[in-house]
């Protein structure tokens, strides 16, 4: 038998086996690695979370999970890829607040919340306002008084124009009936750096992003947009305690395109639930500064729809609604 013939026979055999296992797969999803699309570049918070998840979920899913980064367009490119992929459970995505609840309001986005199958909420990034080096205020009360006395004077750094932190700050300002000057930086790290350097007056970021600088005494925590006080800063009041009825956090979970087969959806939701309650997973995520808040699909969807509604109001007020249509 020549080499070519051997190769042909082997190839044909492989095809047969593939067809056979393919038929069997209906009963036992997943038969091949599951892919999770991260709509941001490798190395960011969402990416590392996905990688820690992929590392843990294997034992609950019985298959490896592969992380694929498709960054661009503030997360809309990767999210669109997930929502337009085949609904077989093999392509999942990290469903983040920005691309799901905000970007559609700016326009130019080819998906909507109605196309999303929400599988499980992984965690939330709480929003903290901190006062920078040299700022004329150091706590919530002083911040609000100063803002009322000097409308539009407080320069608040955020992670990027129209992003979660920007919208959170503007939403807070409108609830508090104050005016601030939002300054968009290229990412949270740049905003926090400018804050430590005293180039701006305040910054809105996650607790993990400001914690080392607060510990070093460079900046001061002002308030958190959460219902109750948080572990890292027990002395910092919530917005509600400061008299502003506003809560906000940015979140991420696992999404898929609508129309998954029911057994596949159940299997995935179950594996995700176990993963997000796994001790090693939680410990690793905490070390990364991520706040784990597992919620099942329906609760995740509720949160996304609530935030999408609030974001729409804020974005309309800012005059940014539909600007990219």
């Amino acid at each position, binding site marked *: 038998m020549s080499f070519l013939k051997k190769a042909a026979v082997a190839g044909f055999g492989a095809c047969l086996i593939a067809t056979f296992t393919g038929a069997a797969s209906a009963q036992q999803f997943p038969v091949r690695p599951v892919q999770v699309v991260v709509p941001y570049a490798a*190395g960011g918070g969402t990416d590392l979370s996905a990688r820690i998840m*992929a590392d843990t979920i294997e034992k609950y899913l019985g298959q490896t999970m592969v992380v*694929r980064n498709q960054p661009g367009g503030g997360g809309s490119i990767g999210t669109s890829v997930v929502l337009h992929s085949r609904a077989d459970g093999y392509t999942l995505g990290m469903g983040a607040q920005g691309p799901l609840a905000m970007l559609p309001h700016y326009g130019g986005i080819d998906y909507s919340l109605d196309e999303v199958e929400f599988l499980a909420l992984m965690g939330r990034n709480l929003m903290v306002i901190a006062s920078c080096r040299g700022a004329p205020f150091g706590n919530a009360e002083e911040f609000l008084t100063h803002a009322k006395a000097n409308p539009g004077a407080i320069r608040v750094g955020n992670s990027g124009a129209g992003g979660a932190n920007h919208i959170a700050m503007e939403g807070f300002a409108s609830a508090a009936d104050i005016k601030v000057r939002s300054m*968009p*930086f290229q990412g949270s790290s740049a905003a926090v750096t400018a804050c*430590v350097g*005293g180039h701006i007056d305040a910054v809105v970021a996650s607790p993990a992003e400001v914690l*080392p600088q607060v510990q070093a005494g460079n900046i001061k925590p002002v308030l958190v947009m959460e219902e109750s006080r948080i572990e890292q800063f027990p002395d910092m009041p919530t917005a509600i305690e400061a008299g502003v009825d506003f809560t906000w956090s940015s979140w991420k979970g696992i999404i898929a395109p609508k129309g998954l087969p029911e057994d596949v959806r159940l299997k995935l939701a179950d594996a995700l639930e176990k993963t997000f309650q796994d001790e090693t997973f939680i410990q690793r995520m905490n*070390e*990364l500064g991520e706040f784990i808040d597992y919620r099942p699909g329906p609760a995740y969807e509720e949160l996304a729809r609530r935030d999408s509604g609030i974001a729409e109001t804020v974005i309309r007020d800012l005059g940014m609604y539909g600007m990219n249509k």
Partner: protein
Amino acid sequence: MDVLQYIIPVFAPEVLWVIALGTLGGIVIGALPGLTATMGVALLIPLTFGMAPILGLNMLIGIYIGGIYGGCISSILVRTPGTPSSAATVLDGYPLAQKGMAGKALGMATIASFVGGLIAAIVLATLAPQLASLALAFGPAEYFALALFGLAIIASLSGDLLKGAIAGMLGVLLSCVGADPISGAARYTFGITGFASGFSFTPALIGLFALSEVFVQIEKMLNERVEKLKISGIWPSRKDLRESTGAMLRGSFIGTIIGIVPGTGSGTASWISYNEARRASKTPEKFGTGHMPGVAATESANNAVCASALIPLLALGIPGDVVTAVLMGGLMIQGLAPGPMLFQERPDIIVGIFAGTFIATVFMFIFGMLGIRLFTKILSVPKNILTISIVVFCFIGSYAINLNVADLYTMIGFGVLGYFMQKFGFSQAALCIALILGPMAESNLRLGLMSANDNLALFFSGPITITFMVLTVLSLLWPLYQNWKARTRERSA
């Protein structure tokens, strides 16, 4: 001193082995276009979950240092910047390779990377806490002044001032595509989602330098017989080294300073260093034609950035560039929050990282020097096959970076643009610098204006801002002065 007690564990065989592996892997990642040091570090972070911090972190640092170095290999051999930080190395490295001195150019690049890395590592180990505060001195006005100074390079870099300016302006214009940094509105995307974040940088560079050269080579092959390249030696001659010492030291210094400033990185450092080397040289006209100091300047600067970008990260918890931002994630997963507390709480980690940086730099040098003969084998591939392979790599590399088809259009578009620029004598380097610094200048100008209530005085206050503004004016006047000097010399002759 108990520093010694912290250093000894780093020399354990498994630590050395992991650093060696990381550095070697980094060199390969860096040399392949489309895989950058940032991606290498990010993709391998999960591997460090189970490792002891000293092992895991030093492996990542090895990848970082190897990755930034590795970029020069493809830049020199096939004019394809393996990482954006080696784009400036193309200018003299590739012409050297074309003259048959690929081995020596790589040797010089390796030595320069080693010197740059070593000098910055010494600064890191001795002056980190003192220098870190420089990172905080940079606000919008300072960044804008730095970007402007960098953009002024265009004037002295391109022989023809007018054509250089046109290329630079075109670059600034092209960098406007994508989301507006202040309002978030999409600009010039024509509704194509793929361009929502603007032209991706790496695909643009691959097109600009590599694909355009492929077109040039194809044209050459049609018209003339291609002779095989000879490769002679890997150690630069004593004369080369003597000529390049100044450029190398200056590059190491520039790289160290730029590395500390957050938000800038090895790309910016290598361009500024290249320009300073050219300005200080007695024979500036040789730059761009295959001149050893050109390679020494860029490669010493970009590898100096590696160690010095760790300075603000470790001392302040503020990453000095993109790769160290990813490294920060790696540290935090180990339960180590970088910042001033880390120096007090975990001196073993700090010293371990310092030592690891030195060791990785040494490994980089050894692997680099040993590998040169292997790397240069690429050039013995017949030119027609090599050219086609480069095209394939251009496509794979551009797509692999974001898995975005729009990036392929970017690469092709910049390839065609680069070809015509080369043909009609417009500087591709000027366009490249503008692509790096245009967005930095724009967003910081606007942030500065926002912060100062539209008062331009902000951009002329503060020692750093004023220094860069003065340097900008000087570097714009420099070529005029040289022209004038040359003319008077001609007249008196």
